[in-house]
């Protein structure tokens, strides 16, 4: 076996809560990067892809476990890696040349040598003649070329990329991807390994020699396999589509074996999100759910999620929350990467708006604990209102602050749509919908 460049040993990330339990973002994970391969890290949003990347580069320290750079702890090692960022992360006040030169300057290199190297790499990525431009004068694709040039100018052993193509349009992304592949295959760049984080399944299958798929809640490796397809890869080839389909299956299937639970230093078991009180609401809008159901119904009530994504030109980050939501509400079932509509789902898709709301209401109260609790709490109160804070505090025990806010936002959105309750945004309180109607009626009477 080859020598590993980076090795992560049981790294995990969690946020300690004031109370005993903690919010686990990534469960203990082993991972290594060896020379000569492009590794793609795939996963839905919230699976901790970016967090994992940052731990592997040494940018962020793991909560537990250790990352080794050539078998030396990464915190003290002289690490030679680069990152290409999704947002490019160029310094807007530096010219293209100065941006590329900056990392060399950090190493204390002589001006002449800096100039030579920077010009050479700008030439390699096709930015000849742009050295005096400022990033904001360039198109997105050109800007990301600067990002690549800056990353490659230090001749990194491992090149990390954090969704490098997702801010670009389809054609530009395609173009840049193939150029990168060419540089890699012809060994124009001395880089030993490439690690790319993406949520685009085709991109992963197109580029990678090895694909790691992450699951979420908390983030964990679901599968890690090698891609044996030869380059150049053909998107239309059966082997290619089969692989894409397989990844879709992995992503949409519930975990066969839940990852083992980590333990706190005191030996107490960390609570597992899935066994916890509240299920995690997928952040989908009711309109999106209705749209998806109609589409599935058009496809005779059953279709491949991969095909659906393709039809909609959606990436998995866009589609999966909607699929999850439809599944949670009992409108859809997913088996082996195939989505099938349920009878309620079919009725929902076919009904007019008032009936749709009614169906949604029934399904939501039945399946979503948080919504059920809100409705009950409102009914139990004599003034028929409940403060948002009350639920915030309960969710807080289980989710990170950011996620708690998003959970509440989704719950409010669903509840308002289903007319389960209304929400007074200025007082941050849930209100019974009738009460609101009543109020507006009485005030209307006053005016008359």
């Amino acid at each position, binding site marked *: 076996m080859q020598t590993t460049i980076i090795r992560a040993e049981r790294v995990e990330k969690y946020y300690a809560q004031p109370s005993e339990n903690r919010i686990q973002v990534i469960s203990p994970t082993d991972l290594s990067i060896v020379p000569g391969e492009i590794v793609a890290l795939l996963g839905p949003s919230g699976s901790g892809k970016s967090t994992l990347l*940052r731990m592997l*580069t040494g*940018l962020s320290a793991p909560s537990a476990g250790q990352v080794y750079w050539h078998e*030396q702890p990464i915190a*003290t*090692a*002289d690490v030679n*890696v*680069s*990152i290409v*960022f*999704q*947002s490019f*992360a160029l*310094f*807007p*006040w*530096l010219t293209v040349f100065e941006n590329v030169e*900056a*990392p060399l*300057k*950090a*190493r*204390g290199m002589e*001006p002449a040598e800096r100039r030579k190297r920077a010009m050479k790499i700008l030439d390699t990525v096709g930015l000849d003649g742009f050295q005096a431009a*400022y990033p*904001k*004068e360039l198109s997105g694709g050109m800007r990301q070329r600067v990002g690549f040039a*800056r990353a490659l100018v*230090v001749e990194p052993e491992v090149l990390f990329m954090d969704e490098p193509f997702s801010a670009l349009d389809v054609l530009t992304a395609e173009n840049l991807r193939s150029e990168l592949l060419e540089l890699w295959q012809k060994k124009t760049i001395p880089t030993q390994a490439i690690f790319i984080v993406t949520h685009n399944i085709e991109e992963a299958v197109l580029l990678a020699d090895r694909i790691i798929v992450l699951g979420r809640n908390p983030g964990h490796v679901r599968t890690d396999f090698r891609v044996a397809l030869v380059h150049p890869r053909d998107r239309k080839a059966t082997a290619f589509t089969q692989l894409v389909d397989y990844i879709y299956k992995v992503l949409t299937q519930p975990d066969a074996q839940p990852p083992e639970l980590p333990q706190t230093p005191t030996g107490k078991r960390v609570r597992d999100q899935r066994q916890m009180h509240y299920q995690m609401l997928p952040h989908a809008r009711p309109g999106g759910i209705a749209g998806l159901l109609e589409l599935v119904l058009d496809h005779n009530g059953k279709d491949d999620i991969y095909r659906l994504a393709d039809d909609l030109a959606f990436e998995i980050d866009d589609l999966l929350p909607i699929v999850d939501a439809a599944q949670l509400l009992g409108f859809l079932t997913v088996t082996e990467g195939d989505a099938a509509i349920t009878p309620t789902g079919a009725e929902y898709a076919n009904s007019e708006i008032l009936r749709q709301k009614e169906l949604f209401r029934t399904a939501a109260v039945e399946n979503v604990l948080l919504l059920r609790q809100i409705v009950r709490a409102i009914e139990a109160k004599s003034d028929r209102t409940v403060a948002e804070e009350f639920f915030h505090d309960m969710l807080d025990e289980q989710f990170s602050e950011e996620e708690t806010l998003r959970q509440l936002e989704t719950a409010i959105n669903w509840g308002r749509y289903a007319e389960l309750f209304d929400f007074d*945004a*200025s007082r941050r309180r849930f209100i019974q919908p009738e009460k609101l109607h009543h109020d507006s009626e009485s005030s209307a009477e006053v005016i008359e």
Partner: protein
Amino acid sequence: MIHLPSGFNYTRGRETLARAQVFKRSWPFFLDLAVAALCLAAFYGVLQIVKFWTGKAEPEFVVSLKPSSLPLYAFYSVVRIGLAYLLSLVFAIGYGYIAAYNKRAESLMIAALDILQSIPVLSFLPGVMLAMVALFPTRQLGVEMGAIVLIFTGQVWNMAFSFYSSLKSLPRELGEASNIYGFSTWQRFWQLELPFGTIGLVWNSMISVAGGWFFLMACEMFVLGDRDFRLPGLGSYLQTAASADNIPAMIYGILTVIAIIVATDQLVWRPVIAWSDKFKIEQTAGADRINSPILHFIQHSNALGAIKRHTFVPLSESIYKRVAERNREYRARQAAGQVKDTPVWLRVGVLILLGAVVLYAATSALLKLREIHQGQYLLVLEGAGATFLRVNVSLLLAALWTIPAGVAIGFNPKLARIVQPIVQVAASFPAPILFPIIILGLLRMGGGLGIGSIVLMLLGTQWYILFNVIAGAMAIPSDLREVATLFQFTRWQRWQTVILPGIFPYLITGLVTASGGAWNASIIAEYFHLKGQTLQTLGLGAQISAASDKGLFQILLLATIVMALMVVTVNRLVWRPLYRLAETKYKLS
């Protein structure tokens, strides 16, 4: 001249104005106490230094009213403001940097900023002057330093806050990029932190310098007990002219001030704004940019380029190289485990020592208050009430005319183009210059200083409100206004549903700034030396001025504490909740 950030595009602008930032944070009560103790300690320290001062009044400098002496006076004043500004800039950057990166000091430093912004700077005038005169060998130099330090204390806080909040809002990925490429602290500062903070610093610098003129007028010439301090400068020129009732000299002086303000705008701020355009974080190159021939000249001058190549470039190269080497060595030592932290006992010891000194000085200052008898307490409280009323009446009056006027201007681009430059000059014109003229006029008409001081406050602060209302009106999307027209809203309905909510956040920003300004202005507006006589009215500002005139430090201390308390309380109880409302409910995004 004060410009609005980037052509009235106020979304980022409001973020860059430091006052606005203060309201985003809140602190536990004990932090405020700590800050208050620090302030008291500083006050006491100044008084102690003053005790050593034993100088006799030296032959006084006589202000000449000849127009030919104006250029030299103007030069002195500009140099004073310039030095104070440079001092502020360096201090603001240092303060902001430490506050942003030192987790332990952060909350205390930010609470201090909040309070220091609210304290009436002018009541420090006597203390600072005496201390500086005591510290420096020749008296003139001491007074000079005192003026500079005073202007500095009026300028620095909003700049410090601006830099701090820039550092706090650094885009995460830019920070990560500089980490992954191994930027040293030095490189990070010059290539990431300072450039990112530049725009905020530039806007706040303009506000600060305009404020500097305000304080300059007050501190170039003032009386303290039987001592008369004066410095050659525009402020003393104008005050002397007013005392001598010399109308032509006053006109010359005012014209000079206007000329300097316009020249500063053209020669300094315009090039600086044009240059700072490259520090904007934006995705596309903006269409409307400010052009500056001077910047063009500087950037394209061969001689300047050559100088830069032969001095600045090699210097920065050698620094970068040395820093990189040092970093490598440090990392090697770190890997070998040779890096040691300062021992804990040392740090704790230093902290305890500092705390004890502050506590001692603060209590000593408070003990001084015992010398005040009850009647004086009552008088100070009465004065506080009177000034409070005056400040709010002036705010109300200002709002009454500026809101309709500002909205009219904001909705009419043609009018805005004409009025905007005038408002900008008016806003940065130091109001105290006009005080003597207005007082003279009011006295002739038979009005007293009680009413007159309201006019004076108004004069200094209404522009901030007008300014912000114009910006707010411009920011209301035209489709909202079209909806109002389409459905034939009544005039009242239009104001109620479209205009007032639309300008609300801007109005609040304007009112906050104006209120702070009005409190500060009360110190010069309620107490006036004119033609050998002293005019005054009941008020907290008058008490501060009178106490410093007569050298009654305990009253000065008490009145200053009361004023600071009132400003901070009003900020917390009134402005901050309103600001929060503006940030949430009335945000147009």
